[in-house]
Structure formats: structure tokens, C-alpha cells
């Protein structure tokens, strides 16, 4: 075992300890990049054993026209722990996205089994066609139901797909630059995240492409957290925006009635439950 791995292990242990303490008191100065990205990943996608939220999605196009969608998102982690230590929190997940509004999408369901080491599985249930279809995407960077969010923004991008580097620290933020290991798999050349130092919420993520005319790159996409609330003691993003800067469109997702540790049974995330929605968990 080399020195660096040893140090990082120690740091993880320390950090895990600190995690239990009130966040404001955390001394993060010794954190390394891997720590930061895992904490941010946990905060953004893995809090609690499961979670439920009602999401109001507002898609605004370049002409300022708005479209509204409302859905209930159920999430369940395979892991029982939220511990950072040994990445215990990190596990496969299931998502169940149940559309409420508009009326002609009512009862439409989008279900995802997110895998850690294989391709995700995605299903779409279209009630008016009474049709369940698996939606295989060769990549995860296509639109999530017509919004500016990508499917990968909603379910989270695997951390080890990118090289992460801490480029600077401000009073409030760690500023990270992440570069894809397989550049041909994604449309960005790198992205820059501002991770809040005390909550580890990635408050802003900006996506860049190389531009021969601009050494600083061409920023074409940006996610911004607009509101954070503490729910069941967990800092939770309740309003987030994604802008497609080239297309001039943006989507805001507002989360209502967020709840953690609902006790969602694993079997509701099944093909059978696409047609007959688990009503008691969707109220």
C-alpha cells in the first residue's frame, strides 16, 4: 500500500467522523478531490435509503414560451448506508418517475435501474398505448423528457468516468474541473463544478467545449442550484435550473414535498408496477 492510498484512507476515516458532526464545524481543508466529489455525489443523489419528491418542471424555450410538467419521482438505493467510508453509500439505484401533468401524459411512467458497473436499464410506460418499452440509449446524455436536463443529470453521472481536479478554492467553494476519461462518449470536453464547502452541494456545474478561438473554451451548458432547504436534517436542493446556452433554452425543476426514508419496497420498481402504479407511494 503506498503512502497516498494510506493517507487518503485515513482522511476518509477522518472525514467520515466529521460527517457526523454539524456541517458548519467541519474542517474541510484537508479534503482531497476524491473526497469532495464523493460527498457532492452523496448529497446530490444518495441521501437516505430512499426518497420521494413531487417535481414541477418548467421548460422555457428561446422564445420565452413555457411548458409545464409535473411528476412524482421515487428513488431507492440498494445500499442501506449513507456512509462515505469505503464508499458504502454508493450502490445501484432505482428511479420511478410518474407523470401527473399535463393530463395527456398522466400515468406515464419512466423507470430507471441505475447500475454501477453495467449499462442502466430504462423503461417507458405509455398508458394511452398501454405499452411498456425499454428505452436503450447508447449514451446517457440525451434529453430527460424534452427538458434541458439530461437523463444523466437526473440520476447522476458515475464519478469514475471523469478525472477530477481541484483547481481552486474560494471562501465558499471548491472549484473542480472534471475531464472525461473517454472523450468520445460525451459531448463536453470538461466541466467545472462549484461545490459548496459546508454542504457539499454542487451549486453550479458549467460544461465546456474546446473552441479554437477561445482558450477559455466555449461554455454551452450550465446547471445552477437556485434553492436549498434542509429536509429531515439533510440539505436538499429544492430548485435547480439547467440552461442550454447555445439553444437559448432552460428548464427549472422545483421539488415539493420532499421526503427521505419513506420505506419504498424494492418490488414497486418493477415492470409490473409500470402499468399498475403503486398509488400509496405517489400521493
Amino acid at each position, binding site marked *: 500500500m503506498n503512502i497516498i492510498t494510506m493517507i487518503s484512507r485515513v482522511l476518509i476515516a477522518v472525514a467520515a467522523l466529521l460527517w457526523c458532526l454539524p456541517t458548519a464545524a467541519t474542517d474541510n481543508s484537508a479534503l482531497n478531490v476524491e473526497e469532495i466529489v464523493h460527498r457532492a455525489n452523496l448529497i446530490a443523489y444518495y441521501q437516505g435509503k430512499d426518497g420521494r419528491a413531487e417535481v414541477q418542471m418548467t421548460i422555457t*424555450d*428561446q*422564445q420565452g*414560451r413555457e*411548458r409545464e410538467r409535473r411528476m412524482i419521482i421515487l428513488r431507492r438505493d440498494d445500499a442501506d448506508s449513507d456512509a462515505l467510508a469505503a464508499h458504502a453509500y454508493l450502490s445501484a439505484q432505482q428511479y420511478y418517475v410518474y407523470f*401527473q*401533468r*399535463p*393530463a*395527456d*401524459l*398522466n400515468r*406515464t411512467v419512466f423507470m430507471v435501474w441505475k447500475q454501477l458497473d453495467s449499462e442502466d436499464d430504462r423503461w*417507458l410506460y*405509455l*398508458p*394511452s*398505448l398501454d*405499452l*411498456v*418499452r*425499454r*428505452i*436503450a*440509449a*447508447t*449514451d446517457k*446524455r*440525451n*434529453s*430527460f*423528457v*424534452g*427538458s434541458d436536463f439530461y*437523463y444523466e443529470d437526473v440520476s447522476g453521472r458515475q464519478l469514475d468516468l471523469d478525472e477530477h481536479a481541484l483547481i481552486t478554492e474560494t471562501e465558499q467553494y471548491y472549484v473542480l474541473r472534471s475531464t472525461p476519461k473517454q472523450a*468520445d462518449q460525451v459531448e463536453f470536453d470538461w466541466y467545472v463544478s462549484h461545490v459548496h464547502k459546508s454542504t457539499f452541494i454542487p451549486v453550479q456545474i458549467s460544461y465546456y467545449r474546446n*473552441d*479554437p*478561438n477561445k482558450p477559455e473554451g466555449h461554455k454551452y451548458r450550465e446547471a445552477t442550484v437556485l434553492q436549498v432547504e434542509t429536509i429531515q436534517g439533510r440539505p436538499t436542493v429544492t430548485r435547480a435550473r439547467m440552461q*442550454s446556452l*447555445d*439553444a437559448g*433554452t432552460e428548464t427549472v425543476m422545483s421539488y*415539493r414535498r420532499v421526503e427521505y426514508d419513506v420505506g419504498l419496497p424494492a418490488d414497486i420498481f418493477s415492470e409490473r408496477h409500470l402499468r399498475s402504479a403503486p398509488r400509496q407511494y405517489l*400521493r
Partner: protein
Amino acid sequence: MSYPSMLDKLAHRSTAFALRRAGLISLSLLLSTLLLVALAALPSLWPQQFPGLHALSIDTDPENMLAADEPVRQFHDQATADFAIHDLLVIGIINRSDPDGVFNPASLARIHALSEYAVGLSYPATADGSGARQTERVIGVDILSPGNVDDIRQDGPGQVTFSWLMPEPPDTRKQARAVRERALRIPMLAGTMLGRDHSTLALYLPLSSKTISWNVRRDLLAFVADWPADDELHITGLPVAEDTFGVEMFYQMAISAPLAMLVIFLLMWWFFGHLLLVISPMIVALVSALSTMALLIISGNTIHIMSSMIPIFIMPIAVLDAVHILSAAFDSHHQHETRADTMQAVMTELFRPMLFTTLTTSAGFASLALTPIPPVQVFGIFVAIGVLLAWLFSITFIPAYFMLIPEQRLQSFGHATSAGNDRGSWLVRSMQLCARLATTQHRLIMLAALLMLLLSVWGISRIQINDNPIKWFESSHLIRVADQVLNDQLAGTYMAYLQIEADASDDLPALRQQLINALKQQAQDMPASDAAVMQAAMQVIRSEPADELNDWYQAIQQQLSDQADHSDQPLLWEDAWQLVDRSRALQESFKQPAMLAWQLQLQQALQASEQVGKINALTDIVQTVYRELLGGDDSAYRLPESSAAVAQTLLTYQNSHRPQDLWHFVTPDFRRSNLWVQLNSGDNRDMEQVIASLERFLQSHPPPQPVSAKWFGLTYINVVWQDKMVHGMLLAFLGSFLIVLLMMSLLFRSLLWGLLAMLPLTLTVALIYAVIGFIGKDYDMPVAVLSALSLGLAVDFAIHLLTRTRQFYRQHGSWAKTVPQVFGEPARAISRNIIVLGAGFLPLLAAPLVPYQTVGIFIAAIIFAAGMITLLLLPAVIQALQRPLFDRLSRRQEDST
């Protein structure tokens, strides 16, 4: 004092002044020209230093043939913004030698690189662009290329997959062929991106402004410079044609106009044999054209396709007067003692006809200001100004210049009537022949003219009104070649768009009642506590004032939504919300299967026209995705059966990489649908046929609900402005004709003489347009504009001939004695003008731009026709109508004395 003698006095005085102050006049001409050019050039070269002055601004956009507030343009702007549609540059790559065409790994790799390169192209916005944008660019997100479009297909049973059609260039031939096979399954791509056979692949680059088309084309051509010859690259599309025409037009101006001047100069030198002297008409023409263009810039007008032709119009007209003066001086110099005597005599004789021609010509052009087409107005006014300037310079500078030449150097100048001067003799002899013909065969000549007129009516009736900016290039031009090749391989490179708007229901009270009834029905089977919620929801609906449909629904749904979020019976409120939303969704016309089925019929009807290569529309997206949802079998290519099924099909589509593509074809309220029509011809005539076939369809196939259909897109706009132009120019020409007739009648103080003066013009125009009708040349923009030029040229000859006839008749009192004199110096001046100008503009035939060729051939034809008619028909008619014509003249003479 009567005006003829006043004119004679004016002629005498102005000439005396010019002769006395030759140096002053030359100097002031030089200074005024320099001043005007400086005022125009300085702010153009250094805009920062001269903020108060107008800089040169160039506008080559044919769209601006229509005023910016023209409804069709406003709608075009609105619709292109609503559907986020941009002008498209069409790039076709053709490989005819590879067995797989362009679908081989190497070609696809090159195409991929080209597409990646094109995504990043951007240019600084032009200085005069009023838009807020700093740069204009290729709209990367909307590019259509194999690497940028989605493929939707089956990926195992019950599995639909979205992926980039060609995320990376393939490695093997098999993979390369598969790209085409996959794309063929997508109706939106077949014909649009894929050629008829595997040889061709097309990319579509949307531009934020068509003003960068030329730059984009240049850079793309540079990028592919090292491509092997087997991969041919073709670039076309109306934006690039229009922009390229604008650029090449200015190069052409710089080549053609000086070349025409050079030929005119050489011909004059040959005629008058005096190098120094024939420079003066060149100076007048140059100074008139320069000053006019400078005034145009100083007054803040843009240089447009039309106004760029101003110099070409002014120059021949300016040369006319100068040639008349020089010709008269040439013929009479030997009779006079000094150069001053010669000039004084010449100017006294020519002052009146030159003034008359100038007044009528400029009035004729000025009347173009009455057309509803802004560039034509500017053109007419400034040509009128230029003609006046040319006259002013001719009557002052030419005599002054004559005086500046030392007497002894004029020794050689002049035409002696005695035999031995071979340079003039053939001209003299042919004019004598003309005179004999006109007086002895006048009946035959008039009969021939009448026959020609009748023939012309037939020819004119065969004229085809048509235009196509691509055809402004010669058939060997690269853009023209690209146009031909790509329209053969692809569905079409000319874009027109058809918006179909469903009329919003305006019967809000009825909708309200339906909603309340539906809620009542739900409430019936509910326990009282639940029914109370429905009652409350009904109250919300009742109390919301019914103004505008969308606002009304939104206001109601907002209230119901708030109740659902905050009351203790959220599910019941949500039920009410859903009920209202289903009612609202019925207003989303283009989610209704019946409406989509009707639109599909409409598409099929339009597609029956051979000009329509393809239509891309919402129906294609819905049917394609629906087919894949149902398993991908061809038989499943159809419309879903309910509006919710349509909505869910589209939701599936929106999980792709390019969800925004949907909004090119329908507005988010699903009330307006847009059909992207690819035409394989940009001829206005063809677009008009498509418009007509739409009208027929709408007549015979009433839609399920009332709609209004409106066209937009460049191909359609061209039809509109051409229509305006043709009718506008026709009216303007008739107006100019009447004004010239009126002025001639006033100046000659006789309607009969006035009508006589119009004869050459009338017959010339009739003949020219008859020829256009017979040979099948399209009556297009340049042809329409050029009818105005005949005003300036044909009237000039007639006025000179008639004025001189009247002058000589006054001296002799006999037509028989007048004839030889008229066919002396005046007829020779006209002939010289015919030869100088007719031949002078023939170099334009070598220009690579068709409108320039048209101008060249037109000027020559107008001049030859008008000249011949003036020299033959006018004397013949005078011969026949001697009594009424000269009776009027002598009566008048007696009056004025």
C-alpha cells in the same frame, strides 16, 4: 418674352459663360466631385472619425426589395422566430467513383470532420447590423449531419433505442454502409440528408444570419481544399446564392463598368479621331456617376442590387449628350473661325433638345418613385438626379473643355463634307440612304412598323414572368452547378415553409358550460363532502372572466393547482385540474389524430407536385416514433389513435438528443404546425404552382376544424417581391410613359408632336419584350428594371430628331428641304450614339452574372431598335403627316412672332 426665345437666350448665356470661364468651370467640377466623393468615402473608411456622416452600406439581400414593414416579411420574421427556423446552407458531398459512394469510411471521416469544423464557424456581425448580436454563426445545435442527428430504432424485442446516427466515423465498409441503411429508415432524413443513391450525402447548416453565407462557403471550400477529387463538395441554397451574388456583383461593377467605358472611349476616338477631345465625355460620364453614387451614400441610402446599377444607367445617358455636342462640333468645326464660334453655334442648336431629353428622361426615372418597392424608388430618384447632373456637366464642362484645348490642336478635328474624308463618308452615305428610304418608302416603313407592333403584342402575350436568384449565375458557376447536381440527387435545396394555424375556439361560454357539466357529472356519484370540492371547482370556473382562451385556462388551472397543493383534499382538486386540462388539450389541434390525418393528406397533395421533393413535418416524427414503439414494422408507420397517444409518442421522441427539433414543426401550444417544404426548383413559377396546389387542396378538403394556411421562407418571399416588382414596374413604366408624353406635348406644345416623340420608345419597348416572349427568356428582376432604361435612350433620339426637324423647318418652311439637313449632322450624331453606346455595353456579355449580360444585351438592343426606328419610322410618319404636323408648327410660329 416667349419661352423659346428665353431658352435661346439661356443657351447663349450659359455657353458664353462656359467658354469665358473654362478654367473656373473645370476647377469647380473637379472640386465638387472631390468634395462629394470625400464626404462619401471618409466616413466609410474611417467611421469613428466622421460619426455624423453616413458610411457606405451595402445590402445585397433581395428580401429588402420589400419594405421591412411589409406584412409578408413581418410574418416571415415572426414565423421563423416562432419555429426557430434559420436560413440553410446546403452542402452536398458526392462520390461517384467509390462503389459505396460517400458511404465509405474515408469519405465519412472527412464529412465528419467538415461537420465538426462547421459547428464552430462564427463571424463578427456587420457594423450596420442593428441586431444585438456581436457575432453571426452557424447554429451548431440545429445542424443536420450524420454526427448530429438521432437515429431511433429497435434494439432487441420491446426495446427502442435513440443514438446519434454516426457518433464517430465508422472503421469498416460494412459499418459505413450501415449508416446509410439506418438513416434510410428515418423518413426525416431520406431525401433530405440522403441522396437518391448512395453517392450523395447532404449537410444542412442553419445560419444565424444569411449575411455570413458567403464567408461560410469560402471557409468550407478552404477546409476541403485538400480533399481528394473523388469527394466532390457542392454548396448551394438561396442564402448563399443571394449573398454570393452580392459579393460578385461588386467585383463585376469594378470590372464591367470600366470596361464599358473603355470601349465607348475607343469607339469615340475612332469616330472623332481626337484623343484629347474624346476624354471629355468620359469625364462627364465618370463625374456624373461618381457624384450620384456619392450623393446616394451621403444621403444615407444603402447600395442595393438595384442601386448598384445606377452608374450603368447614368453613363450611357451622360455620354449621349456629350456625343451629340462633339458630333455637331466635329461636323461643323471647319465652317467656323474659332473654337468659341463652333461651340456657340453647336450649343445654340443643341441646347433645346438636350434640355428636353434631360427633363423627360429624369421625369421618367423620377416617376419610379411611385412604385411600392423601396429600392426601385431610390434607384429612380438617383438616376433622375444623375441625368440632371450629366446634363449640367455636358452644357458647361464640354464647351469649357473645348476651350481649354489649344486652337492649333483642334486643327485636325472636324469633318469636311468634301469627298476624301473616308472616316465620315460611309456614315454620310448611309444617312442619305436612310433619308431616301424614309421619304420614298414611308408607307412600306409604316406598314412594317404596324406589323412589328402586332407581332409584338403576340410576343408580349407569351412572356413568362419568373425569377430565381440562383439563375443570376451563369450555368457554369459553381453555385449553379451545385444547384443542379444537388437538386437532382436530393429532395430539394429551396426551402419554403407552410404554417397551418388552427383557429382558436372563441366560444368560451360554451367551453365553460362543458367544463361545468363534466364536473357536475363527476360530482353525481360522489359522497357529499367530495362533491363539495367539485362544486368549489365549478365556482372557480364560473367566476373566471372569459377573455382569452389561453389566459382563461391558465388562470383556472392555476387556482385549481393551488387548491390541489394546499387543501386537505388534494386528489379531488387534482381530478378537477385534470378534467380542465383534458378540455384544454382539445385546443391543442395538432395533437388531434383527425387534424394530423388531414395534414397528412395535405402533405400528400403538395407532394404530388413535381417541384416538391419532400415535406418534413410533425406527422413524420409522430409516425416514425410510433412505428418504433410498436415494434418497428413498416406496417406500423401510421398515426396513433388518440391525442394522448400522440402526446406520449412525442414524449418518447423528446428523450432523444435533439428534443428541440420538435419545435421546428409545431408550436408548444400545438395550435400552429409548420411544414418544411423542400423544392427542387427556385423558380418563382414553380413556387406559384405549389401555392396554387395548396389552394386547390384547401378548397376540396375542408379541415376538421377551421385553419388558416400561410407560406413563409425565402423561396416564397421571392415570389412575393417579384410579383410586386413586376406589377410595380409595369405601373411605374406606364406612369413614366404618360409623364414623358405629357412633357413632350407641353414642350412641343402639340399632342401630335408629343405622340410622335413617343413612337420610338413605344415600338422599342414592344419589340424588346416581344423578343423576350418569343425566345422564352424569363421576365425577371433585371428585365423589369431595364424597361425604364428605354425611357432614357429611346426618347433621346426622338427628341433630337424632332427638335432639329422643327428648327430646320422653321428656317426653310419646307419638309423636302428639311430632310437632307436632318439627315446631315443630327442623324450622324444619333448614329454615332447608336454605335458608341450599342457596342460600348457589349463587354457586359462576358460577365459571369446573368443580370449583367441582360443589361448589356438590353442596352444594345434598346439603342439599335430605338435608333433605327427614330431614323426610319419618324421621318416616314412625318412624310405621311406633313400637313397636320407642320400646320401646327407654322401656326405656332406665327403666334410667337
